[in-house]
């Protein structure tokens, strides 16, 4: 239960970075295994060695670029939460746009704008999917508390007005 008592934000960056690296490495590993298998000379030994070489070379690269994306996104997200003081879907969308822009900075301002638009749209879609999932999960439990009265913390309503 200790992890709920501490602030998620600074630790979330490490979490997201590591999670993104794992996703990229596993996905890249599977993809490169198949690709290396197919692009090798005939013979199972050759093919297995080819796919192993491909995995060893390419999968960490893909994992690394995913980790950069995830770590940068989480850093900008936490900074926005700290600045604005509230947690919103707007934070995620703006963080996605800024991450896309920063990672395309080498290719000039026009490429930055395009990359920012793509990052923002991608994160808006992910946020929409997340909201849908939470709404769907909450409607699975139809019995909420029966609310016919106002809570007891409020004083009885004033009779004037």
């Amino acid at each position: 239960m200790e992890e709920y008592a501490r602030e998620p934000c600074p630790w979330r960056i490490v979490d997201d970075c590591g999670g993104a690296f794992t996703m990229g490495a596993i996905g890249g590993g599977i993809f490169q295994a198949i690709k290396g298998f197919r692009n090798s000379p005939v013979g199972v030994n050759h093919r297995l060695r080819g796919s192993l070489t491909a995995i060893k070379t390419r999968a960490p690269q893909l994992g690394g670029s995913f980790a950069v994306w995830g770590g940068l996104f989480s850093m900008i997200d936490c900074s926005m939460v700290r600045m604005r003081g509230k947690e919103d879907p707007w934070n995620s969308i703006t963080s996605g746009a800024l991450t896309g822009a920063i990672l395309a900075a080498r290719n000039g301002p026009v490429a930055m704008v395009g990359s920012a638009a793509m990052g923002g749209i991608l994160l808006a879609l992910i946020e929409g999917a997340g909201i849908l999932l939470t709404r769907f999960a909450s409607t699975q439990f139809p019995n909420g508390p029966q609310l016919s009265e106002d809570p007891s913390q409020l004083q009885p309503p004033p009779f004037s007005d």
Partner: protein
Amino acid sequence: LPASLGRGCLGRWLLATRGWALLGTGTGTGSCSCLRWRHQPPLLIRTARQSIGTQAGGLKAAKPGGDSKDVSVQRALNEETLVSAAQKVKEAGRDFTYFIVVLVGIGVTGGLFYVIFKELFSSSSPNKIYGDALEKCRSHPEIIGVFGDSIKGYGEATRRGRRQHVSHIEYVKDGLKHMRLKFYIEGTESGKQGTVHVEVKENLETGRFEVRYIFVDVETYPRRTIVIEDNR
């Protein structure tokens, strides 16, 4: 420029206007430049002949190419009529499947965009109500007195630690829609925590939600309740 070249050299100035640049800077008197000219013309005439020659060769070469192009177009037309009906049906089926896939993709994307727009921009979304209530909390003097100047707000914690989801319940009472929200605020300096309860009621004339009450439960030892707004 032609005037400076002198009368004898006028005859060839048309050919030499290009060669003029080859001569470089610094033209002396008119006679001097004419002398220089006399050495240039053979070179110029040779290059001119070469360019005209290549143009003619190009024109000649274009013709058989053009003929072969006509022939190949005719052959393609003949081949098309030989494509069997079965292949046409297969291609049509494949195009149809791709079309359905594209439609499904557009539908899903459009649905997600609609959800996120409604959540962020419509005034009756829980997120908007949470934002307005947080602003009201931030400007209330009693809250500032308890929590300090900078107040941050957040909702329920999901598994990953992101706290964007604000817990809310919608219900209908007396034919009007009500919504109850609950979120948490925390003073960053004092470290005190509080729970904010908001209820809004739908106003049928304007179609928007109006606040019914907002109050804050402060987590101090003698539990304190600060009522921000009460419009019942």
